């Protein structure tokens, strides 16, 4: 099994297209960092407007530190990275069918279930490497460029402040949560890949599903809040933000606290449930599929 996994990972990282996602992530993050480095004052001013006089005296360089830059980047990126994940997981089975290599793989002395397990595991491995790459650039490069200080997170009716020594562990958990969300997307495109003989189909379908679900998630219409939103996996993918929502007593942040841990755990459980569902369908269908490609 380990040998088969090594083969799949070798194949993924031998393809030039694999590196597109890494290049795109690096480009976006660096562009955001450049923009904030040279135009961060206006951005922070806009963010802090309406926060009252208490923040006016604080220099921009204090507010705009590496932790805040990383938060801004994750806010912008984590909704789009799934598209890059779909590039590899959507290609996992359909790409082999398209190349004509699927029939050769399935005629080898490896069970179809084993083949799917290693293929999905390789997609997960790629997703994790992509996430680590994003963490390195978004968090550590931002810290290097902007330094560290307290993190201020603006919410609808409040502003949460976390001391600098209370932030890094939150990012660690936020990235772990993001991993669960991205694996869920990988499972969705992987499932679609099993049904197709051409990788364009599952990749485009995954992207369309993410776009439609994200729009529904972000629509501020009360009717959808209870009828549709709680069931969309894209709603729960935003759960990583919960690690930056803190408890406050008399306007003072409680260090090391998380406002609603049970909501985060519920979102994680729903994402895992979706992942199991997508994989279950993929395994059920592929086991009996006629390989005609």
């Amino acid at each position: 099994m380990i040998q088969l996994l090594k083969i799949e990972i070798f194949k993924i990282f031998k393809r030039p297209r694999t590196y597109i996602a890494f290049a795109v992530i690096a480009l976006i993050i660096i562009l955001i960092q450049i923009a904030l480095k040279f135009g961060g004052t206006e951005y922070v001013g806009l963010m802090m407007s309406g926060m009252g006089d208490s923040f006016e005296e604080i220099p921009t360089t204090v507010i705009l530190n590496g932790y805040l830059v990383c938060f801004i980047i994750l806010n912008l990126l984590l909704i789009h990275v799934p598209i890059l994940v779909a590039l590899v997981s959507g290609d996992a089975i359909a790409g082999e069918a398209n190349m004509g290599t699927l029939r050769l793989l399935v005629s080898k002395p490896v069970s179809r279930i084993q083949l799917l397990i290693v293929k999905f595991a390789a997609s997960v491995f790629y997703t994790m490497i992509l996430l680590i790459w994003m963490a390195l650039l978004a968090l550590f490069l931002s810290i290097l460029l902007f330094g560290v200080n307290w993190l201020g997170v603006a919410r609808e009716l409040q502003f949460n402040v976390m001391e600098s020594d209370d932030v890094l562990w939150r990012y660690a958990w936020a990235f772990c949560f993001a991993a669960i969300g991205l694996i869920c997307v990988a499972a969705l495109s992987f499932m679609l890949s099993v049904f197709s003989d051409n990788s364009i189909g599952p990749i485009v379908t995954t992207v369309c599903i993410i776009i439609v679900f994200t729009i529904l998630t972000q629509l501020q219409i009360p009717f959808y809040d209870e009828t549709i939103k709680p069931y969309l996996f894209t709603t729960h993918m935003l759960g990583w933000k919960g690690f930056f929502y803190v408890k406050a007593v008399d306007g003072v942040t409680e260090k090391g606290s998380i406002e609603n841990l049970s909501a985060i755990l519920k979102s994680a459980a729903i994402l895992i449930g979706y992942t199991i569902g997508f994989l279950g369908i993929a395994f059920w269908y592929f086991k009996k599929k006629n390989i005609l490609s």
Partner: protein
Amino acid sequence: MSSIIDVRGLTKTFNEITAVDDLTFTVQEKSVYGFLGQNGAGKSTTIRMLLSLIRPTKGQIKIFGLDLSIHRKEILQRIGAIIEKPDLYKYLTAIENLNLFAAMSGIKLTRKQLVDKLERVGLGERADSKIKTYSQGMKQRLGIAVALVHDPDLIILDEPMNGLDPQGIADVRQLINHLSKDQGKTVFISSHLLTEMEQVADSLLIIHKGKKIADGNIHELLNPDQARIELETKSAKELEHVLKQTSWANKIISANGQRVIMEMRREDVPVFIRQMADMKQDIYSINRKNSLEDYFLSLTSN
């Protein structure tokens, strides 16, 4: 000799279409078994069922005496195959492709062993070239190397000579003979090149519209003791007139234009040729007509 493949009542239907219809055949150990049929006759579907790529609607497949539906993994461990065209990973080199498929069959080979296997199909010098730079013939050779990389007992080759030049075809023919006669492998081969099949196959299975129409030893099927010959001459009618004065008169099948077709015992052919020379008959060419091609066409044409 024991049977390596034993197929009973194999049937596959796709919706309303029956691609393979109640097919029964046996492939003997160490033989080269030719599998023929027109396009759409059900050859690829049958081969895919033998490799468990397609689930049969009905029937049983036993390979190496084991039921394929139960012992899939053990059976596939001992089979090497090319299915239709040898599509491999274009972004990998030949040696990477070979190593990858060896590993999938549970075999670990050194670089030298891999290069040796590539040299056997004439690709040693291009071992480190990416497949996307290969010609169709080179891909075909690499496909054969991939099929043989784990030293299988049964080799299933679907159109292995497609895209090969005459030298390549001769090399594959030699390789098949070597695998069967020297190494004792069983080869199940489908091809459209009937003259090649005639040269390599010991037994034949011909299917038409999913049904078996002929099966057996190639020599018995083609009846080599009886020769059907075609003579090319200046005028078929003149030659027919001359032949009717001789004991060969009842051997004439037809005489039209410049061609006379005759049927006689194989050992009588040289006697006939000598006599024609003595009689100073101008015969431009003599061709044997009971080839596999003629036999195949007689069975499959409407």
